[in-house]
C-alpha cells in the first residue's frame, strides 16, 4: 500500500512537469506590432579614411601556380616549383621473384606533370609552355618577379626579372581539348640537379611562350624513372609531390587611388573608419514613417550592411571564380597594416559570395556586406564583453590569399560610392494590458 500511495503521489506530481504556456488563439490581445523600416546613409555620414593595404599572405600559400604571357596585354606570370628530397628506396622483384626494398637506385630520367584548372584558365586552344631549371638561390615564400629572396636583412634580385635566366629543360603544349595536364620530359641531369636538398637554387620554372591566356596550374607531380641495382633490367617509377609551389608576376598592381580592393595574392585589404550616426534626419520617406530627427537605439538595428557597387577589375586580375568577401573589426588602426583583426562579422562561414562577372563583364552589381552586431555595438558603445568596440573595419577575402585575382568596388566620391544600409525595427514601449 505504501508503495502504491507513494507511486501515485510521485506520478501525480511528475506527470505534468512538462510546462507549456497557454497558446493565444483568435481574439487574443497582442501588443502593438513594431514597424520595420529601411534607410540608406551616405558615405560621408558614416565612414571615412578609406585606405587600401596590400601584401597579406604569400602566393605560396595558395599552393597553385599561374602562367601568363602578356595576359590582357600586361600580365606576365610564371610558376616556380621546388621538390623535396627523392625517395631513397624502391620495392622491386629480385631475381628470386620476391618483393624487397632496394635502396641502391639510380635516376635515369623522369617527367614533370602539370595539371591545370580548366575553369580558372582562360585559354580555349593549345598553349606552348616551357620548363626550365632555376639557376640562383630563391625563397618560395618571398620570391617576386624582381626578387629571388626578400626576407629581413637578405634581399636578392633575380639576375633577370622573372626568375631568370633558366636552363631550358623541355617545352610542351597543353591543349585543353585533349586533357587537363601537360608533361615535361626530364633527363638524368635534370633529375640529379633537383636531388640535392641543400641546394637553395633547385627548382623549376614554368612559363608560357604564347601571349594571351592566363593558366592556373592546380598541382604538379614529379615522376622519376629509377633503375634498382638488385634488378637492373627493371625501371621503376617514383612519384614526388612538390614541397613548394608559388608564382611570380608583373606588373604588380598599385593600390587604387579611388576605390575598394579586396583579394589577390598577396592579398589586398580595404580599411575604413565607421561611425553609425545616432540620429537620422532623412530621407523624407523615412521621416514620414518614424518622425525626424530619429534617435537610433542599438536594439532597433535589425540589419546593417555596407553596400558596395562592383566595378571592373584590371583585366589582368579579373576573377574567374567566385569571390568570397569578409568584414572584420580592426583593433588598432594606427598599427596598420599589422593591426590584429577581430572575428568575422558577416555571419556566414564562407563569407559573402560574389560571382566573378561582377568584376568583369557585368560591373555595377550591388553587394551587401552585413555587420549588424558590430553596428549595434558601435551604437551601444560597448560590445557583449563590455569593451569599447573598434571603430574601424577591414574588408578582405575570407581566405588570404585565394587567387591572383581581386575584387574592385567603387570608392568614396564616386556616384556609386559605398552606403550604409540600415533596417530598423521600431516598436512602441511595452505596456501592461
Amino acid at each position, binding site marked *: *500500500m505504501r508503495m502504491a500511495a507513494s507511486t501515485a503521489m510521485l506520478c501525480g506530481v511528475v506527470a505534468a512537469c512538462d510546462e507549456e504556456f497557454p497558446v493565444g488563439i483568435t481574439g487574443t490581445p497582442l501588443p502593438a506590432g513594431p514597424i520595420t523600416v529601411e534607410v540608406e546613409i551616405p558615405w560621408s555620414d558614416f565612414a571615412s579614411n578609406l585606405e587600401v593595404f596590400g601584401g597579406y599572405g604569400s602566393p605560396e600559400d595558395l599552393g597553385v601556380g599561374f602562367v601568363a604571357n602578356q595576359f590582357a596585354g600586361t600580365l606576365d606570370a610564371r610558376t616556380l616549383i621546388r621538390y623535396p628530397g627523392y625517395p631513397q628506396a624502391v620495392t622491386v622483384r629480385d631475381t628470386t621473384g620476391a618483393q624487397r626494398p632496394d635502396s641502391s637506385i639510380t635516376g635515369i630520367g623522369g617527367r614533370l606533370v602539370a595539371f591545370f584548372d580548366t575553369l580558372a584558365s582562360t585559354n580555349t586552344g593549345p598553349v606552348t609552355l616551357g620548363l626550365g631549371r632555376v639557376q640562383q638561390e630563391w625563397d618560395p615564400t618571398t620570391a617576386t618577379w624582381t626578387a629571388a629572396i626578400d626576407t629581413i636583412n637578405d634581399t636578392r634580385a633575380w639576375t633577370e626579372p622573372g626568375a631568370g635566366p633558366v636552363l631550358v629543360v623541355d617545352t610542351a603544349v597543353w591543349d585543353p581539348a585533349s586533357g587537363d595536364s601537360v608533361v615535361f620530359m626530364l633527363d638524368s641531369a635534370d633529375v640529379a640537379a633537383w636531388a640535392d636538398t641543400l641546394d637553395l637554387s633547385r627548382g623549376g620554372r614554368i612559363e608560357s611562350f604564347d601571349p594571351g591566356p592566363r593558366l592556373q596550374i592546380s598541382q604538379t607531380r614529379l615522376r622519376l624513372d629509377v633503375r634498382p641495382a638488385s634488378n637492373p633490367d627493371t625501371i621503376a617509377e617514383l612519384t614526388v609531390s612538390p614541397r613548394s609551389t608559388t608564382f611570380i608576376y608583373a606588373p604588380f598592381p598599385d593600390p587604387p587611388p579611388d576605390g575598394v580592393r579586396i583579394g589577390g595574392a598577396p592579398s589586398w585589404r580595404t580599411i575604413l573608419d565607421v561611425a553609425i550616426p545616432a540620429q537620422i534626419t532623412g530621407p523624407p520617406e523615412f521621416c514620414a514613417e518614424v518622425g525626424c530627427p530619429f534617435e537610433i537605439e542599438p536594439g532597433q538595428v535589425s540589419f546593417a550592411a555596407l553596400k558596395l557597387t562592383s566595378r571592373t577589375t584590371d583585366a589582368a586580375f579579373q576573377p574567374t571564380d567566385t569571390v568570397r568577401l569578409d568584414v572584420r573589426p580592426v583593433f588598432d588602426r594606427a598599427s596598420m597594416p599589422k593591426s590584429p583583426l577581430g572575428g568575422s562579422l558577416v555571419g556566414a562561414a564562407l563569407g559573402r559570395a560574389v560571382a566573378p562577372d561582377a568584376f568583369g563583364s557585368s560591373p555595377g552589381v550591388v553587394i551587401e556586406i552585413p555587420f549588424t552586431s558590430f553596428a549595434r555595438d558601435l551604437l551601444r558603445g560597448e560590445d557583449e564583453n563590455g569593451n569599447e568596440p573598434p571603430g574601424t573595419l577591414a574588408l578582405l577575402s575570407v581566405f588570404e590569399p585565394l587567387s591572383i585575382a581581386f575584387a574592385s568596388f567603387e570608392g568614396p566620391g564616386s556616384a556609386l560610392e559605398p552606403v550604409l544600409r540600415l533596417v530598423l525595427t521600431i516598436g512602441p514601449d511595452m505596456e501592461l494590458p
Partner: protein
Amino acid sequence: MMSRLVRFNVGALAVGLAVCGLAREATAQSVFNAAGLGVPSEALDGRSRALGSMGIGLPGGAFMPTDPAALGRLAVATGVFANQPSWVDYSAEGGPSGSFQGNRFPLMGLAYPVFDGMMSLQVGSFLDQNYTDSRTGSVDLSTETVATNDEFVQDGSVSNLNLGYAQTLGTDVSVGLTVGRYAGTIVRTLTRTFGEEIAADVNSYVERGRWAYSGYHLTTGVSATLTDRYHVAASVQIPSDLDAEAQDDTDGGDRTFSLPVQYRAGVSATYGPVLFAASAVLADWSDTQSDLTGSVQAGSANGFGLGVEFSRARLWGRDAPLRFGYRRSTLPFSFDTNDVTERIYSGGVGLALNRTNDITLAAVDFAVERGRRWAGGIAENFWRATLSFQAAGF
C-alpha cells in the same frame, strides 16, 4: 509524531517536486490567461476541489485563505501543500486548436498555535497570466520582401503571501482574519524575427517590459456549527488596488488596477455518513474595466458549487471519504463582450494516513476535475488533478 508511511509519502512528494524543479517555473492553465489580468487561481486543497467548493463552508479545520475562520478549527500545528497539474485542449471557431499542459502549486502553508488560537503563514496563487502568441507578416524592403514573425510571451502571475489568525469562540463559532500581500512579477516580451529572404546577420528585435506587483488585502470570516448537522461560513476579502511597478529599464509605465471585494459563503449539512455542501462567491470586477486597454472586458466573477461526501468509505483499512462535486462560475475577464463561463465536474478521495484521538495527523486529498471554459467561439476542455498533503503534530 510521524509514521513511516507519512515519511515515505513525503519523500515521494519531495522527489516529484525536485524533478519538477528542473522544469520551468510553474505555469498556468487556460487560454483565457491572455484576457485582462488573467484567470483567478484559487488556493484550494484537494478536498474543496473534489467537492466543487468555492473554498468555504466545509466542516473541520482547513487551511485556505478563502475561509479564514476554518483555520481556527485546526487542533495542532499543521502544514499543507497542494500540487495541481492540468491538461487542456482548446479550440476556436475558424481558428486554431491544440493542447497544452502545466503544473501549479496553488497552496502552501504552515499553521501553529499562538495564544488561544491558530496563526498561519500561507502562500497562495491569485491570478495566472502566462500565455504566448504569435503573428506573421511581411515587410517590403527595397531589395526584397521579408517574412516576419512576432512572438509574444507573457510570463507572470500574481500570488499572495498571507498571515492569518483564527480563534474559536466557545465550541461552535470560529472567527478568522487574514492579512495578505500581493506579490509576483510579469514579464512581457515581443520578439520579431525575420525570414531568410534577407542576408545573414539579421538580429531579432526584442521589446520587453517587466513589472512587479504589490498590494494588500484583508480577509475576515466567521464560521459556525449549528447543532451537529449544519455548518455555515462566510468571508469577505477587501483588497487594495493592485500596483504594477515597472522594473529595471522597462520603458512602459507603472499601472494600478482596481480589485473587487470578494464575498464568499458556504453551508454544509451532515446526514449520517453523507455530507452535502454548497458555496458561492460574488466578485464584481467591472471597476477594473477602466484600468484596462484594448477590447478586453471586465465583469462579474460569480459562481457556486455543490458537493457530496460519503465518509464511510475505506481504503486499505483507513478512512477514505469519496467526494463528488459540481461548480459553475464566470471568469472576470473576456476577450470581448462574451462572458467566460467555467463548468466543472469533480470527484476525489481523501485518505487519512494517521489519526489520533479524532485528530488527523496526516492526510492526503486527491481530486480530479473535468471542466470546460467557453466564451463566444472559444472553448477549452481540461482535466485537472489536485493533490494536497496535510501533516500535523510536528
